């Protein structure tokens, strides 16, 4: 076996019979034969073939694997709509305190007052940031928040004796929006984008009727542009009796500057793993709390964290309120991703009112600076901005001229960026823009790292002018090169075959 193959063995391929890491406590109780405890037909005959590996090998194995990952702590990660901002380590420390980490979710509320108060404080903070009075922390991620919002909309209309069937969303919306619409039992209707990158009002006017339950929007939208007509849009939807839903994926642009509630939104989800610094973990965990207006409040998920005044001078107490007769019910087990709440609340405390506003300012400044840098020279020529106006926290370039003139696609540029030590932007999204690259630098990058990224793009384009094959075959320096995704889908191998 050569060294290369050694690197990619799975933990199962490192298994040797008889090896182990765990030492368990003694049972301390009689060794009753299992058949006397459980009927024999309900017992397992052969244990699952888990790996047999000692602790030093487990540690080496996963450390080796870790080196085959690129991560935010190593380099620039301008992944559009994902808000890859720095994850403060203080948050990990406070989340790991036993009072948080080893607290059972069914602990009696009177013995979990700190946790319930933290949740209540986070609810209040998010309500203020969103400009909507009521918050449920329950949804587990953004898409879960979307589903919650749509089920809330359904409950709201049902309560009024209405049954509506359609949900509107722009053609630039995140894929989760239409997927959530289907799961909530509605039909999606796409709304067109105007030449300034916002919702096309005439198209919207044509599609809004009393069948429309909701309009789902991101503002700033996935082009990184603030929709200047939002007040008019909100008016149209509300006049027709629908709700206005805010996909909070892009909230990082407007914290402390503009609030979805003030824009007319009824329901907002917040991605704590984007704007509020919960680490992404390679694909989770996240959390997707929702903030809602008064008319939606009666339908919020159960249980709800509430503050009760004591009346006897001993100060307020906190509780879980299950007595919510109009509630849509539970969306998940227990109270939500509390560990994420701890991190995000620590983040909000650290930054404070001034810091949150400054974070958004810097995010917008960084995006506009990088956009300006990429409007120069080769990038400006081959990768024009899709909608040429000041952006908010992100912007979208089109690789269409690059593909035509240089023969390299957006995918090739993205793969070549890997050789330069950068995570590529989000590619081929939004669908509206051909060969799209969506760039979100976030506020936690320095001017130097933005410049280095712009320089790398220029260098790749210069190289492609000479030799487009270089990019088309990239990457070269990564642990593996381009992978055969077709094979993985046609004949999927999704687990280790064992003897």
């Amino acid at each position, binding site marked *: 076996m050569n060294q290369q193959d050694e690197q990619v063995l799975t933990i199962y391929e490192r298994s040797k019979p008889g090896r182990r890491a*765990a030492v368990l406590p003694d049972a301390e109780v009689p060794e*009753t034969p299992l058949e006397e405890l459980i009927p024999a037909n309900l017992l397992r005959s052969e244990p699952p073939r888990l790996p047999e590996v000692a602790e030093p090998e487990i540690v080496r194995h996963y450390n080796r694997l870790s080196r085959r990952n*690129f991560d935010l702590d190593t380099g620039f990660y301008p992944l559009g709509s994902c808000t890859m901002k720095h994850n403060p380590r203080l948050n990990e420390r406070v989340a790991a305190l036993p009072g948080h980490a080893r607290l059972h979710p069914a602990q009696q509320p009177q013995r979990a007052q700190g946790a319930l108060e933290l949740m209540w404080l986070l609810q209040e903070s998010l309500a*203020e940031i969103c400009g909507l009075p009521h918050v449920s922390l329950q949804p*587990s991620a953004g898409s879960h928040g979307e589903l919650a919002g749509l089920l809330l909309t359904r409950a709201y209309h049902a309560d009024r004796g209405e049954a509506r069937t359609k949900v509107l969303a722009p053609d630039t919306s995140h894929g*989760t929006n239409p997927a959530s619409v289907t799961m909530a039992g509605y039909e999606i209707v796409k709304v067109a984008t105007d030449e300034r990158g916002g919702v096309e009002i005439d198209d919207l006017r044509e599609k809004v009727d009393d069948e429309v339950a909701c309009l789902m929007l991101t503002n700033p939208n996935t082009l990184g542009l603030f929709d200047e007509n939002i007040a008019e849009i909100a008016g149209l939807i509300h006049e027709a009796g629908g709700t206005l839903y805010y996909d909070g994926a892009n909230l990082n642009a407007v914290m402390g500057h503009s609030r979805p509630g003030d824009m007319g939104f009824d329901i907002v989800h917040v991605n704590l793993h984007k704007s509020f610094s919960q680490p992404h973990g390679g694909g989770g965990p996240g959390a997707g709390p929702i903030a809602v207006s008064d008319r939606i409040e009666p339908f919020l998920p159960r249980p709800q964290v509430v503050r009760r005044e004591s009346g006897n001078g001993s100060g307020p107490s906190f509780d879980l309120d299950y007595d919510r007769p109009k509630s849509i019910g*539970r969306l998940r087990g227990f109270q939500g991703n509390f560990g994420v709440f701890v991190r995000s609340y620590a983040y909000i405390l650290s930054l404070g*009112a001034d810091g949150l506003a400054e974070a958004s300012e810097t995010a917008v400044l960084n995006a506009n600076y990088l956009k300006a840098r990429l409007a120069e020279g080769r990038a400006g020529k081959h990768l024009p901005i899709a909608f040429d106006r000041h952006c908010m926290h992100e912007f979208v370039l089109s690789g269409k001229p690059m593909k035509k003139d240089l023969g390299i696609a957006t995918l090739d540029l993205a793969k070549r960026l890997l050789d330069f030590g950068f995570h590529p932007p989000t590619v081929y999204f939004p669908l509206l823009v051909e060969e799209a690259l969506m760039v979100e630098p976030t506020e936690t990058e320095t001017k130097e790292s933005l410049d280095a990224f712009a320089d790398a793009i220029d260098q790749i384009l210069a190289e492609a002018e000479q030799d487009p094959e270089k990019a088309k075959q990239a990457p070269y320096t990564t642990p593996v090169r381009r992978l055969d995704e077709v094979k993985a889908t046609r004949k999927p191998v999704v687990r280790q075959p064992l003897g």
Partner: protein
Amino acid sequence: MLAAIGVDSVAELFAQVPEPLRLDRPLALPEGMSEAEVYERLAALAARNADCEEQVCFIGAGMYDHYVPAIVDAIIQRSEFLTPYTPYQPEISQGGLQAMFEFQTAMSELTALPVATAGLYEGPSSVASAAYLAIGATKGRRRFVVSRGVHPHSRETLATYAVGFGAEVAEVGMEDGLTDAAELAGAVDDETAAVILQSPNFLGSVEDVEALGAAAERHGALLVVAVDPMTLGVLRPPGECGADIALGEGQPLGNRLDFGGPSFGFFCGAEELIRKMPGRIAGETDDVDGRRGFVLALQTREQHIRREKATHNICTAQALNALAATIHLAWLGREGYRELGELLLRRTAYARERLAAVPGVEPLHEAPVAREFAVRLDAPVERVLERCAERGIAAGYPLGREYPEHEDGLLVAITERRTRAQIDDLAEALGAAIQAEAGEFPVHKTGKSPEGVR
């Protein structure tokens, strides 16, 4: 930077926000704090919680106080696992993708089903996700039959989702701690998309899944079984009992309690269901040089490609939590995993017997149990819990709210952290509390009248 952009101030960049929509005041939040101050603030909140270091915890109900080995924390706190996004660029995400592949292998082994996904949010919403899959897999049937033995949170979550699916949920009752087989057989019909069971069920009993599942098979419905991943070293796995889908709450594997999350849900199924499954699935493949590598397979199921036609809306899920489980399972290993299952069974049997010997405590049912069991108390459950709590014991989970028919019921969970001595203490504390409530003991010993105690 402003010069490069061609503006004089950052405020100019915000000019695209119409003036009436600009917040003309600072957010009504405190000013920012130093790291030390934030730490103190959060530590003060944490100190007001009775965690499992302060109280001996016999509460389970789906989440358990297991020991998480130190290497789990050491590995999942590495930047390379903690801070990347979802592995959309596989060339620089091989570590995370291979970890997913190993996770899927482990879950497939545990459940004895051939296909596992990379994970969902947590247990209860995974049940709703299985029901959603069942609608598609049965060509649009919209009825679910669910046992009352399934976790109340799962049933409530299913009911919430079912409104969106336009589906009906029929609940089947229990008899002596087990799903009522006759009622179940009668409830399943040709419109039923899925029969949903849990084993061990919420009252701790090990169900005969194979026998119960026959009704599903007769009517062409999917058999969906929620399982406890800490019991599958000893209990017959769902894949050998005819389950089409096995899923569950993953917290017992490598994840801390965290007051309920984040944890993860696992989701395993039959081969033919793979293209209908929710969420991410890692698959093995080769790169252009023929080297082994891993990618996100079957992405055409997912929302970012298929949009409204996706099999599910899930995007960010619980990758890091699934990695914790993968490491924990490697640490336990084949033998350790089985031994732990045996230990839980035997200690639970001891605890059940020990508690049943306490005057005023009797088993709620006689069905076989694995790691959790229900008892009936001859005193108000909340008062007994309060008295035990004052002695530093979280005695269990009261059944009354979710099972009004068991107003006097208490669910007691055992982990490898609950020693024999602690179990004996629990028995003594329960006995003393029940006696005190019965008035045989001076009630005022604790300094509180019964009315003053919640």
